[in-house]
């Protein structure tokens, strides 16, 4: 597959990037590492007239440990560099595990954390070349009010496969967004919308600048199952965090991804574990409750029935690991 033609703009600073975005608006697309965007452009899912590269913006590529314990990761940091950072491994092993679960080493040498959070959603129909897709009419994500995966759908259910999103949500992280009117900081969970076509709250003139990970004493775990370890998108991914003792938690956060257009906070199961602690029975009930709360699940490489069964096992095993780590 060859790339479509476009005009290339390399921003030397954040201000230049924002100015280019303001000028070209909906005609433009942002590129960080390009490992997601260029594939989608080759498949003609995206054909921007202008491509704005953030690769030359040094201020997006820093990792800092702030005095209040917050780890600030620039959106343009390569995944390999996030893994190698001593503060990440020492203080946020679940984040390191999630970053290390993204694609292959080759992909992580190109891909960035900001790009991973903004990762385009996919389903088995859209994640194909243009020629393949032409065998059928389009869908919500391309050019038609229809869905080939969930036939009764009234919107796009393409799957959010970001591995780092659930881990960052479990860690209560935030993202810093910059636009013409200034900056805003939102929780990673609130960054997403449950719509495969417009799956983040980013305005067309906004950029993701940094990720803020607070250190409030939570311990966290990340788990993923994919067909080929070290290459494929998740069939299911899950992150959980716990503050306080496992039998009397002060805070519990459970987040599932790769089941719908947005990462899913399992609030019912969280309440259950808060009330009874991480006992075997409560863990089983939390995992089952999560499975039952799924609603319609989109197929991406793995049928939705498999995903449902997987979700329960993934959650149960990860919660046992989290509890035993804490004990």
């Amino acid at each position, binding site marked *: *597959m060859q790339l479509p*033609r476009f005009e290339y703009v390399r921003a030397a600073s954040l201000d230049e990037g924002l100015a280019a975005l303001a000028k070209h608006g909906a005609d433009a697309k942002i590129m960080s590492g390009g490992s997601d965007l*260029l594939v989608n452009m080759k498949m003609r899912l995206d054909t921007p007239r202008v491509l704005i590269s953030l690769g030359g913006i040094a201020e997006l590529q820093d990792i800092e440990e702030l005095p209040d314990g917050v780890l600030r990761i620039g959106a343009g940091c390569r995944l390999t560099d996030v893994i190698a950072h001593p503060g990440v491994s020492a203080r946020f092993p679940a984040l390191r595990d999630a970053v290390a679960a993204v694609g292959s080493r*080759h*992909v992580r040498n*190109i891909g960035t954390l900001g790009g991973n959070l903004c990762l385009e959603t996919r389903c088995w129909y859209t994640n194909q070349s243009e020629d393949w897709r032409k065998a059928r009419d389009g869908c919500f994500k391309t050019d038609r009010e229809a869905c080939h995966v969930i036939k009764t759908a009234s919107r796009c259910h393409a799957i959010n496969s970001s591995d780092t999103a659930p881990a960052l949500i479990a860690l209560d992280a935030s993202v810093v967004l910059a636009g013409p009117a200034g900056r805003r900081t939102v929780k990673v969970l609130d960054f997403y919308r449950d719509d495969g076509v417009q799956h983040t709250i980013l305005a067309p003139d906004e950029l993701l600048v940094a990720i803020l990970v607070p250190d409030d004493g939570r311990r966290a775990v990340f788990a993923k199952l994919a067909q080929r370890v*070290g290459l494929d998108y998740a069939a299911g991914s899950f992150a959980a965090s716990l503050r306080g003792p496992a039998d009397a938690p002060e805070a519990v956060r459970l987040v599932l991804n790769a089941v719908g257009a947005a990462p899913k906070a399992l609030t019912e199961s969280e309440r259950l574990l808060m009330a009874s602690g991480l006992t075997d029975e409560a863990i089983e009930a939390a995992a089952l409750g999560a499975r039952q709360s799924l609603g319609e699940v989109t197929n991406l490489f793995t049928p939705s029935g498999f995903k449902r069964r997987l979700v329960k096992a993934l959650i149960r095993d990860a919660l046992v690991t989290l509890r035993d780590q804490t004990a």
Partner: protein
Amino acid sequence: MGKQLITLTVNGDEYELAVASHHTLLDVLRNQIGLTGTKRGCTAGSCGVCTVNGERGEAILSCLSLAVEWDGRSVTTIEGIRQGGELHPVQQAFLEYGAVQCGFCTPGVVMSAKALLDVTTSPSEDQINEALAGAICRCTGHIKIKKAVRAAAAVMRDNEARDDG
């Protein structure tokens, strides 16, 4: 949408090139410079046959990297890893262990293995698996490939010991 002038160093040689913005590093290496050792496979990052080594020696997918982004930078391809006229230890080991079947994936696998062994010549099994997971052989399996990588590591360790001693 015109072309852009870039300076790109490939295997130590500097090239001045007018590249189209939509051409990847792979396109330019193969079609403009004529170095066809780097292969074009899935063109979507999944197979690893287009792997080259970036400035830090890291494995890079040249099919998912725009050539214009390489202005002023340097890259090493399979054609550039011979050392003083001799095959690189990884290449030599692939020959000796028959870690090649049709050969199409070989340049990418060799560049992926080299990226690992440039960082450590005593890689663990997990590190070898991780380094090679993005470079896929579709003919056979990775058993002989991994044997060759371990053998190359041993040769490189010996070379290091000799250089130190």
